[in-house]
């Protein structure tokens, strides 16, 4: 399989008042097209920073991120916006537009892309069917549960017809049962549309449920990278062991 995303010697430093803090330290890996790739680590390991570098919400201090063999740091602002439209992202806090109902939220990226209103609505309704929320089309986000909001956010991302879906702790605010159903939906989307999914999480359960490959981050370094079966069956790094056993070892 061809790699869709390549991360090459990525470093990200933040200036704090105690000096420079390296959030990411020389990270390299690649993600195949159609894969479901997990990035796991304890809080502060740099997972969120890593995923934010993949659509340049954060600019790397050094190193490169290639998508389709193009260095995204070299794109013009216009090309970058187009790349971002093709790289959907969902968040822990859903970030729906509160003043618009569910259908209009899903229509939103289509409107921005200049799709005609009637067409946009038709497509949005289809997507709402995909995520199992068509009967909530005229509800407002405030009337939905967390899981339903995340489904709307997923439908909205799909409206942009993305190739890549970045999930930043997308299930961390949800209860276990809802998490399961959202993960099942992501799996469906991966199978149905062939969208490459990158999942950021601190829960091993999430990785086990849907990922094929997983990268373990520890204090900004790549501690381990392998198939999920290998990391779970035979963890080599200390960070992976801690995450697996859920306790701090001395």
């Amino acid at each position, binding site marked *: 399989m061809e790699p869709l995303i390549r991360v090459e010697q990525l470093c990200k430093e933040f200036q704090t008042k105690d000096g420079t803090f390296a959030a990411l330290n020389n990270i390299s890996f690649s993600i195949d097209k159609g894969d479901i790739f997990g990035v796991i680590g304890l809080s502060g390991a740099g997972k969120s920073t890593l995923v*934010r570098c993949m*659509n340049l*919400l954060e600019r790397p201090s050094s190193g490169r991120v290639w998508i389709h063999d193009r260095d995204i740091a070299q794109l013009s602002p216009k090309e970058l*916006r*187009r*790349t*971002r*439209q093709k*790289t*959907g*992202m969902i*968040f822990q*806090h859903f*970030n729906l*537009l*509160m*003043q618009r109902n569910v259908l209009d939220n899903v229509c*939103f*990226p289509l409107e*921005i892309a200049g799709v005609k209103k009637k067409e946009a609505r038709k497509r949005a309704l289809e997507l709402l069917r995909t995520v199992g929320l068509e009967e909530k089309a005229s509800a*407002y986000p*405030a*009337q939905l549960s967390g899981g339903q909001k995340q489904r709307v956010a997923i439908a*909205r991302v799909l409206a*942009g017809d993305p190739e890549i879906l*970045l999930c930043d702790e997308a299930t961390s605010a949800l209860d276990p049962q809802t998490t399961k159903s959202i993960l099942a939906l992501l799996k469906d989307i991966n199978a149905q549309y062939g969208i490459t999914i990158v999942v950021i999480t601190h829960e091993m359960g999430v990785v086990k449920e849907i990922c094929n490959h997983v990268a373990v981050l520890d204090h900004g370094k790549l501690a381990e990278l392998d198939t999920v079966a290998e990391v779970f069956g035979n963890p080599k790094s200390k960070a992976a062991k801690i995450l697996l056993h859920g306790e701090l070892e001395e």
Partner: protein
Amino acid sequence: MQDLGIKVLFMGNNFWRLLMGMWITIRISLISAALSVVFGILLGMVMTVKHPLIQVLTRIYLEFIRIMPQLVLLFLVFFGLTSTFGINLSGETSAIIVFTLWGTAEMGDLVRGALISIPKHQYESGRALGLEPIQIYRYIIIPQTLRRLIPLAINLVTRMIKTTSLVVLIGVVEVVKVGQQIIEANRYTVPDATFWIYAVIFFLYFIVCWVISAGASALEHRWKN
């Protein structure tokens, strides 16, 4: 009916004069409020800039205006400018300047509060959707800011309308002053005019402020879901 002081209202064009007085009040408040909203939004945006000098300057302005009683500001502008710089402003212009200075400071602080209350991830998700900066403001930030702002801004406008009664003291003949003139002119013929005139003034203020608050709560209600 003959003995009721309310008849004073219907003598000559008294009622019309009161309404005209109210119009002066409303005109001063509305012009000041409109200017305050425009300048306040700009000031609020400037106040979110993280530059020490800008922060200190805007802070000083805000505190100065807040600490000064509006009456002192009115005297400063109306009498102070004339005696110190020889600039001769009409009472109404002075009032508009003072209320705009005051409103801009208050509004600026409200806008600043509303802007920083929008979480960072709102901007981020806009960027992640591939929006241009201007679209992020147009579709995401401004609608949310407005919702938080409208109740507070309306409150400010009604306070402004009520505070305009101070402009009597720099010689502007607005509704309260007209009322006093009517009372004085009829001191002997209608001794209890005071009660009726002030009651009418009360209702005039009440109606204006009530219409504005009712409009605001209707908006709030509509936006609730």
